[in-house]
């Protein structure tokens, strides 16, 4: 095991004090002189043609500075999948048609919020209502209303994966079963509602402070939709109150703020209400999952045929990626000699689904894991044993995806079974009590370049100073997950410095090196971390050269940066303080500052990810037989995230995942009436509270990921997957109710009981 100074330590987060004091500035906390307040007019109809928009009354209202509709825009479509332009299906403001309740139709900038809101009510839009469709089956039927003219089938993405011979596999299987699962839509429910503020400088260049996970994506897409050059747009990410995948696209308010700022010459700020977030915000894809699996008698997997219909809502958003990934995740965890996947992304007249923590995995793996448990029971095996028998291991090749490098999956299953006393509890719990298992695998960032960036996936610049400090610049975005802290830890480790010696500037597209694709897909630690190491090593090369020359060292001397010094490993006396070494390099270069760029783009790692995380989770529940209420009594988790860089952060990610998984399993859902979202506040959107959280124990399985910085890989996002299947399996163990239709509600448990009585 490698030994580290800064890695594996509970370094306090670099932003914690500012947040604890209330002095951390989030987007809505900002105000500029002369600033106008923006509001969006949203469609009240799920599907309609826009016949006419009359803004004259609203424009006449005192205090209203400008109103824009699509007519005031260049009408350029956008979408995150720039690589496949036909997937770019959204206009910043609706052109000709609205496709969901909440679709943005017009934007107002006024001198105060109340006036802006009043103006919205004075805009008259004449609609011609069109027939609307709300589920994937209706949408894919012959003759269904067409939501986008370019896509007469309403199926916007078809993704197929195939290896081996699935049919032969089933023929050779001793046991084959088919199940259909339905999983619901849930909200990111980040605490900070989206907010954005735009300012235009005297040259017409735009600066946009915005609540985003992906400053670079917003920069590029804002430029293209406004018909401007990328370098004329600067995106600054202030402190962000969480994202979870919900803030990774250009959005209508960002576009509208920028355009209104341009048109009025004044700064413009938009902040969404929570009601808007729930009504029209992005959400996790509901999926209809049909899975057929075949096993040998001894429990070994032979084949899997997976068909998934994703309910994408009105636009593609990040749906194409989710369609690809749910197929990739379907082939993870276990060794499937024969595998076939067909994923279809379907349009409906509902708010668009998009990326959300797990990115297709929570849905796909729910089906995998529940089916594994069903199969175990029917084959007379323990759910733990059937998993151990089929578990992926290091070196396994998944055709067209990757070769798994580090993998602590088996160790995770074994550890969680031991911690939870699985074998005893599975046999001896009382009626109404149950214990269940769920597992996950997840990516450490994606390889497939759907955004078609021309830059490295992550980049870093390190500036070294003769006072012994360095300045790290990176476009990586800390959205609350702690990447600024982790990247500083990695740099401190590499350069032998303390956290206080490092200044960091992050996520400002005009100041930090091009580029970084943003915070999603658990990519930041691995990719931005590697970019930081790359830059740091280039700095070290210069420092080592200077020290080597200064002490006339034999060329075979190994050098190191440690404890604020640059020195010979064998004889620490042969060395200088970090600052002195920097000064020497600078002198040797006649004053030229010591600045180096580093970058990372995955190479030769297939098309999915450079590294996979793994883990297993066990839940113990108690179910009230009369009310059907489920109480989660305890959770145990063992996971493999490679080297743990910041233990407290990893544990925080884990507990946060459990909260989200608990909600996904038991209480969270969007209640819809056709295209209308009925759950529009936190009173009815049932996110677990402090009282709902079970006690939880965790073990980090010790692995080292060769592709990761200091051996680290994904953590925290994969863990969004195992909680629901673990709880679901525990509920089955307690009650006999096998949930194939999330969430598990008391009512479903009671209904199942009733039916079994009959």
């Amino acid at each position, binding site marked *: 095991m490698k030994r580290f100074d800064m890695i594996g330590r509970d370094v306090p987060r670099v932003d914690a004090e500012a947040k604890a004091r209330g002095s951390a500035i989030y987007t809505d906390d900002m105000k500029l002189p002369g600033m106008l307040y923006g509001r969006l007019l949203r469609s009240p109809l799920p599907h309609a043609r826009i016949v006419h928009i009359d803004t004259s009354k609203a424009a006449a209202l005192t205090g209203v500075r400008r109103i824009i509709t699509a007519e005031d825009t260049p009408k350029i479509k956008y979408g995150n999948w720039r690589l496949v332009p036909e997937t770019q299906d959204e206009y910043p403001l609706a052109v000709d048609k609205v496709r969901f309740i909440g679709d943005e139709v017009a934007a107002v900038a006024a001198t105060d*919020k109340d006036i802006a809101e009043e103006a919205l009510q004075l805009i008259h839009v004449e609609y011609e209502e069109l027939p609307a469709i709300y589920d994937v089956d209706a949408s894919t039927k012959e003759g269904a209303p067409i939501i986008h003219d370019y896509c007469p089938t309403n199926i916007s993405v078809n993704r197929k994966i195939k290896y081996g011979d699935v049919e032969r596999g089933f023929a050779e299987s001793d046991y084959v079963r088919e199940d259909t699962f339905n999983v619901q839509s849930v909200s990111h429910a980040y605490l900070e509602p989206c907010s954005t503020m735009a300012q235009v400088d005297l040259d017409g260049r735009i600066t946009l402070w915005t609540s985003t996970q992906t400053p670079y994506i917003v920069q590029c897409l804002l430029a293209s939709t406004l018909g401007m050059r990328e370098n004329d747009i600067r995106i600054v990410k202030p402190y962000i109150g969480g994202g979870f995948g919900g803030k990774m696209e250009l959005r209508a308010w960002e576009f509208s703020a920028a355009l209104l700022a341009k048109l009025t010459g004044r700064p413009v700020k938009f902040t969404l209400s929570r009601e808007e977030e729930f009504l029209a915000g992005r959400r996790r894809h509901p999926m209809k999952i049909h899975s057929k699996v075949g096993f040998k008698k001894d429990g070994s997997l032979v084949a899997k045929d997976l068909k998934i219909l994703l309910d994408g809502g009105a636009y593609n958003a990040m749906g194409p990626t989710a369609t690809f990934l749910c197929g990739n995740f379907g082939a993870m965890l276990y060794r499937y000699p024969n595998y076939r996947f067909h994923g279809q992304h379907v349009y409906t007249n509902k708010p668009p689904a998009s990326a959300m923590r797990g990115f297709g995995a929570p849905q796909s793996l729910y089906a995998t894991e529940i089916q594994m448990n069903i199969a175990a029971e029917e084959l007379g095996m323990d759910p733990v044993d059937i998993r151990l028998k089929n578990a992926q291991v290091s070196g396994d090749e998944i055709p067209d995806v990757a070769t798994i490098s580090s993998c602590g999956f088996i160790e995770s299953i074994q550890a969680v079974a031991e911690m939870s006393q699985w074998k005893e509890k599975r046999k001896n719990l009382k009626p109404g009590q149950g214990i269940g298992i769920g597992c996950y695998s997840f990516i450490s960032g994606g390889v497939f370049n759907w955004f078609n960036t021309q830059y490295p996936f992550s980049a870093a610049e390190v500036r070294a100073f003769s006072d012994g400090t360095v300045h790290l610049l990176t476009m990586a975005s800390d959205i609350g997950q702690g990447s600024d802290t982790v990247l500083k830890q990695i740099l401190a480790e590499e350069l032998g410095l303390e956290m206080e010696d490092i200044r960091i500037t992050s996520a400002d597209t005009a100041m930090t090196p091009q580029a970084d694709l943003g915070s999603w897909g658990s990519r930041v630690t691995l990719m931005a971390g590697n970019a930081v190491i790359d830059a740091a090593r280039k700095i070290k090369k210069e420092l080592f050269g200077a020290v080597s020359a200064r002490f006339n060292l034999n060329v075979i001397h190994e050098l190191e940066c440690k404890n604020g010094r640059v020195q010979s490993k064998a004889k620490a006396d042969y060395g200088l303080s970090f600052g002195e070494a920097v000064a020497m390099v600078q002198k040797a270069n006649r004053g030229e500052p010591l600045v180096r760029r580093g970058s990372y783009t995955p190479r030769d790692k297939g098309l999915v990810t450079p590294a996979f995380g793994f883990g297993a989770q066990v839940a113990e529940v108690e179910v009230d037989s009369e009310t059907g209420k489920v109480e989660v009594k305890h959770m145990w988790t063992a996971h493999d995230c490679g080297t743990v860089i910041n233990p407290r952060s990893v544990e925080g990610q884990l507990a946060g995942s459990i909260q989200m998984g608990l909600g996904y399993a038991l*209480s969270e859902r969007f209640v819809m009436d056709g295209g209308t979202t009925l759950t529009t506040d936190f009173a009815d959107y049932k996110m677990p509270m402090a*009282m*709902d959280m079970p006690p939880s124990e965790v073990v980090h399985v010790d692995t080292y990921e060769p592709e990761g910085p200091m051996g680290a890989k994904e953590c925290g996002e994969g863990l969004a997957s195992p909680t629901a299947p673990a709880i679901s399996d525990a509920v089955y163990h307690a009650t006999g109710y096998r949930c194939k239709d999330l969430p598990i509600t008391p*009512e479903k448990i009671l209904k199942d009981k009733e039916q079994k009585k009959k």
Partner: protein
Amino acid sequence: MRMPKFEYYSPTTVAEALSLLEGKGAAAHVIAGGTDIIVKMTHGRMNADALIALERIDGLNAIRFDASKGLTIGATARLAEVASHPDIRSHYPSVVEAVLCMATVEVRNMGTVAGNLCNAAPSADTAPPLITLGADVTLVGPKGERKLSLDQFFKGPSLTVMEQGEIMTAINVPPPGPNSGSSYKRISARCGVDIAAVGVGTTAVFDGEACSEVRIVLGAVAPIPLRATQTEDLLRGQKWTEELISKAGDQAMNEAKPISDVRATQEYRKAMVAVLTRRTLEEARDRAGQR
């Protein structure tokens, strides 16, 4: 999401409040803690040209208990004060239970029992326990003061028998009788604070093995907190057996008239009325034994 514009008055006496209310007419609304009203107004579910705040009326926040006269909760007493009041905690535990599960710490520091009742949500948590305890409310209006059984107070969602110009000044609860016990239980999606999908309040008086008097009120299963009178008739004067309790649950279920909404379906609500009725009866019995 825009707060409509209104005038605001902060009278210091009930008389002043009444005259303001009279002067402003139907467009005026009384505000206590504001936790319901502000949400309704920002979401366009309520409109008022004038809000008349009761908060600064002297003495209106008093909570008084006297073993012979019972409990009086002033209209502006905060929910938190009610839940932490030692006499309420020891003599009226079902009221405390309702208050603790119905609102967050912050809302309890702002909201009032009177506000919860006047808002008249079918799911109002304080109503079932208070009705079963035989509470009445003091209403003061242009025609003077009247006392009204809380049982007669509700007319429908957001509707009460209060007349134009009337203010609720207090809630009065008789002293708990000997051999009596009360309980309030509810079902909601989360463990802690949440909106009730179903709630049942029960108060029963026992005479040896028999139940001599009982009141059962069902919350969130009808347009108003619903008295399960036939269930009460079924229990009254009968010997306390498991079979009787089970029958009472079924009867209460038949009396409930719930709807399906985002919080639960009709069927589930009905089934839960039976369960909670049984459970509150059992708890009331246990508590009566402890008294």
